[in-house]
């Protein structure tokens, strides 16, 4: 054990999260204990976390206002400080936190907006893989499609909600008013980055479910069957067309 007056990085680090803490050996230039000087680091660390979270969740911040967002953020970052140097990807688990943190419950759609923004952030930094072109997809023999499986772009994610999350997200990120959004509508969203811009598309709930099936390795026959079982009106061509148009398909694997 080091002597009690010697510098400890773990003490220094732990003290940053305790309002009253002043680890031993931290002094001013004259050698006197320096709690206010040390608190500059406390403030720097917490504020940098809150700012990083605000940059990752701009729509959430707009929807609840800066003060409420910062209060939520302070609680989240205190419970979940970053475990990686990659602050560009900080904020994992914010939606789950919002679900469980009582003061956030007054904005019930907020966790699903956070899910869109998390997917957006991951898509923004995801690997550069070009979607399959319409020509390349058209060149796949139609009889091979049924047993084919699909690799989606690494940016692809779906979010399903009982709230109008696409329109709320769109209003918040485009300077619109959420008063125009019909609260009784439930929406699903597809996040995808076919080139360098991230897109969020409103999609039917069923399509979101089927995209998840594709991501989990289902064949297109299985997807078509699941679609028809869920909705007699289901139009596979429309569903497949959406995947092509949004640039969600990285590769089609012919399995026969």
């Amino acid at each position, binding site marked *: 054990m080091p002597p009690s*007056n010697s510098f400890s990085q773990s003490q220094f680090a732990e003290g940053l999260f305790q309002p009253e803490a002043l680890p031993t050996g931290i002094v*001013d230039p004259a050698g006197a204990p320096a709690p206010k*000087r*040390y608190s500059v*680091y406390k403030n720097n660390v917490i504020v940098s976390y809150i700012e990083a979270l605000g940059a990752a969740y701009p729509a959430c911040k707009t929807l609840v206002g800066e003060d409420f967002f910062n209060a939520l953020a302070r609680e989240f970052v205190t419970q979940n400080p970053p475990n990686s140097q990659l602050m560009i990807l900080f904020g994992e688990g914010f939606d789950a936190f919002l679900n469980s943190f009582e003061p956030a419950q007054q904005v019930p759609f907020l966790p699903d907006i956070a899910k869109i923004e998390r997917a957006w952030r991951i898509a923004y930094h995801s690997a550069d893989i070009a979607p399959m072109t319409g020509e390349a997809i058209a060149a796949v023999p139609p009889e091979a499609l049924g047993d084919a499986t699909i690799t989606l772009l690494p940016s692809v994610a779906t979010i399903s909600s009982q709230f109008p999350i696409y329109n709320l997200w769109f209003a918040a990120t485009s300077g619109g008013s959420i008063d125009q959004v019909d609260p009784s509508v439930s929406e699903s969203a597809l996040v995808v980055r076919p080139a360098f811009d991230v897109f969020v598309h409103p999609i039917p709930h069923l399509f979101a479910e089927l995209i998840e099936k594709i991501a989990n390795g289902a064949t297109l026959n299985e997807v078509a069957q699941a679609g028809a079982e869920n909705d007699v009106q289901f139009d596979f061509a429309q569903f497949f067309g959406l995947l092509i148009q949004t640039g969600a398909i990285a590769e089609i694997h012919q399995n026969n």
Partner: protein
Amino acid sequence: MTNKQLDVGVGFKPEHFQDIMQSSPDLGFFEVHAENYMGDGGAPHKMLSALAEKFDLSVHGVGMSIGTLGDLDKEHLSRLRKVVDRYQPRLVSEHLAWSSHNEAKNLMFLNDLLPLPYTEETLARVSEHVTEVQDTLGRQILMENPSTYVAFSDTQMSEIEFITRMQANTGCGLILDVNNVYISANNQKMDSYAYLDAFPLHAVGEIHLAGHAEDTDDDGERLLIDAHDRKVAPDVWTLYEYVVGKTGPITTLIEWDNDVPDWPTLYQEAVDAKTIMRKLKAFTDAAE
């Protein structure tokens, strides 16, 4: 006069990308924070690749935690190597500071440049870590002098002695952050000119300049904060002029990371640095 002699750069901010590409500013290089380019792909890499076609790059790490008393995070080191291998920057640099301390077990990233006491133990650890980074990257890195707000009762040597010995131990280069000198001199009640006179200027490969904020300490005395959120202060320009008087024209960076201004405002700071170098160079030339 060539660019090399007046080698001034600024910290790259994505919001300036269009302005930079359209105006082709007369700058020697752009500096980026390594960690912002550790994602797999997307717009950040696209912009940096385009920038790298026109300008030299300087990769400035903010997360290696070279001052940790534990081990360096090997995963992070390999991420840095990937960035350096991909972009082949002219300069690679890091800080005399720490930001995480228990990498091997359960990393918690503190996202700040935290200070450490200057002791034989910390000097040995920092020197080992600088060497490890240089060996992994296969090149020299520059280490930056810190801005600090506290002192440590454990400290056994001056910051100058620590930096001088770290440099001698590792053969690293140095960044002399003149704003940090000004901040630390105020906060640690040192004389900034004496600090600059004692600094191992022969190893300095880059000067940093930035703006700072003002607060008060436990006794209500002026405490300066390294905020990077405004123009370089007049007193810091004066110190810079003093440094350039000693070194001659030298690679210089303007950092502005928070409350980022429009491009013309940031570019003007770089022009001001050039003006100081040009003036001193003209004076030196006339005297010869």
